[in-house]
């Protein structure tokens, strides 16, 4: 019995490892056709789902060349003229092939637009949320009396509990019109998506930052107060330096959250595969590209979406590991 229980718990723990590796391998194998087709150039290609006419497939061109060279060897070295003519004929053949078979079009998928959209909307969210989150954390940890801090703390955590789809609807119908009135431009845009994303990560960032600040030993703060320091000076010179590493970790962790957020952004970013011309023009992000196109996609298109998923998974894996293992570990 003891053995069984121990084995079971080991198996469950191993499941985590299996799942993570499984996610990576599954995404990779589903993305394989797109990876083979587009390679790393996928990341810098701004076209999505664009039909391009290709003269012939590379296979056919190779075959034609092979045939020509065969002809050359047969006709001998002195008949260069003839060989040239052969080439021309082969070219004409290729043209003919094109005319007959117009379906020699390729659909090109590139990931640049959603990748840029994801990074920029996250950046906007961060710039917007950072100062407010720091202010809230300072308020909760240092300024408010204990009972007010508790109540406000719970309220902020409730904000974090609200489902992301609610943020999306509220953002689209109530928040974005106001932003668009002030800034101008579209209601669905990089800017409004980033700002709503910022509101979403705000409570998360504030909560971890508060926890980091709370680790500052009371003795340090009290000595500074005893020397006549004001609250601002204590926070700036004692608490921030002491909990700096933890705070950076919490910011990066919030960034990881924002990168993968789907629903709130889906309502607001506009969902068009176009690089944003300005901060208030619409674009798309990786999660939104997946949410909107997965249903209809098949073949190479679906594979390209898995390629995007793989890229997102790797980026967020890297960001979260950096936060957890470098900054938050050090903070402990």
């Amino acid at each position: 019995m003891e053995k069984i229980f121990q084995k079971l718990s080991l198996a469950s723990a191993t499941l985590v490892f299996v799942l993570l590796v499984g996610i990576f391998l599954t995404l990779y194998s589903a993305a394989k056709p797109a990876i083979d087709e587009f390679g790393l150039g996928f990341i810098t290609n701004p076209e999505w789902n664009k039909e391009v006419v290709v003269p012939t497939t590379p296979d056919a061109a190779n075959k034609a060349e092979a045939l020509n060279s065969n002809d050359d060897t047969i006709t001998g070295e002195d008949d260069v003229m003839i060989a040239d003519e052969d080439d021309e004929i082969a070219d004409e053949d290729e043209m003919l092939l094109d005319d007959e078979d117009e379906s020699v079009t390729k659909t090109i998928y590139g990931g640049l637009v959603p990748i840029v959209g994801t990074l920029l909307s996250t950046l906007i969210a961060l710039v917007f949320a950072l100062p407010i989150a720091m202010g809230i954390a300072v308020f909760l940890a240092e300024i408010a009396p204990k009972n007010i801090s508790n109540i406000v703390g719970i309220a902020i955590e409730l904000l974090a509990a609200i489902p992301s789809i609610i943020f999306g609807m509220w953002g689209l119908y109530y928040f974005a019109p106001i932003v668009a009135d002030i800034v101008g431009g579209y209601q669905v845009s990089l800017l409004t998506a980033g700002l709503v994303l910022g509101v979403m990560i705000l409570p998360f960032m504030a909560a971890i930052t508060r926890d980091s600040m709370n680790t500052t030993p009371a003795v340090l703060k009290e000595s500074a107060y005893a020397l006549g320091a004001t609250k601002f000076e204590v926070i700036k010179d004692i608490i921030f330096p002491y909990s700096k590493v933890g705070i950076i970790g919490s910011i990066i962790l919030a960034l990881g959250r924002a990168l993968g957020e789907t629903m709130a952004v889906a309502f607001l970013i506009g969902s068009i595969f176009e690089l944003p011309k300005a901060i208030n023009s619409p674009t798309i992000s990786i999660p939104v590209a997946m949410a909107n196109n997965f249903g209809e996609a098949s073949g190479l298109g679906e594979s390209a979406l898995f390629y995007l998923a793989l890229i997102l998974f790797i980026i967020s894996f890297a960001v979260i590991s950096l936060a957890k293992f470098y900054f938050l570990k050090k903070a402990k």
Partner: protein
Amino acid sequence: MRLLINKIFLGLSIGSALIGLSFLAWILITLFMKGLGSFHFSLFLNDLIDGGLRNLIIGQMILAGLASLIGIPLGMTAGIYIQEYGQGKYASLIRDLSDIMMSAPSIVIGAFVYAIVVVPMGGTSGWAGAIALAIMMIPVVINTTDSMLSLVPRELREAGIALGASKYKVIIDIVIKAAKVGIMTGILLAFARIVGETAPLLFTSETSNYFTLNLNESFPSLTVSIYDLANEPEKSSRDLAWAASFILTVMVLIINLTGRFVTRNKK
């Protein structure tokens, strides 16, 4: 001058707290106004096909409930392994990986389940949705179990073993009992989180306009239907989406607050 800077800084800090609170208030007030405006008790009696939400609410609870049935035992046993059995490197590796998985993008988990469940099964299904939510839940349960068990004093375990109990008996009868309240809170918060999830369900369970208990076909989901309804041009659909959002948020917040209340009382 120093005092002035201090005042300005404190003012800014209080100001940001007010901004945070006003966002919460703004969202909640919007939800109440729009949600209550379109709210009607008949929403609980009809299915989506007849303009109600009954099948969606039941479907969402079934998906989250099934996910919990899969995720809680797996997460708890894994947490027990990390804290009680595991030594050294492997246990801390699993702990770190579980932390990473907790923040993995939910849409990526949806895509993963799509590839391993939906494609082999030949279509979206309730099972796929429940599995996707379970994967979201497992790392959260591991995290709570792990940290709550670490709070149980060593002496309790030693006393149990001194009485001749085997290790698993000690874990089940003593350690888990001592950490019960904390673990339950964590599980309730995890449940509240997955009830409101949309992204992992989009291409796993999808949603359905009809009432069904058959987990082998597309399964009604409140959140996915909110997304569909909110994007439709008719005002009636959007009103229904607001009513559904209102119900969803109330459900999530009640579960969340229950979790917090339980711990508070125990303290």
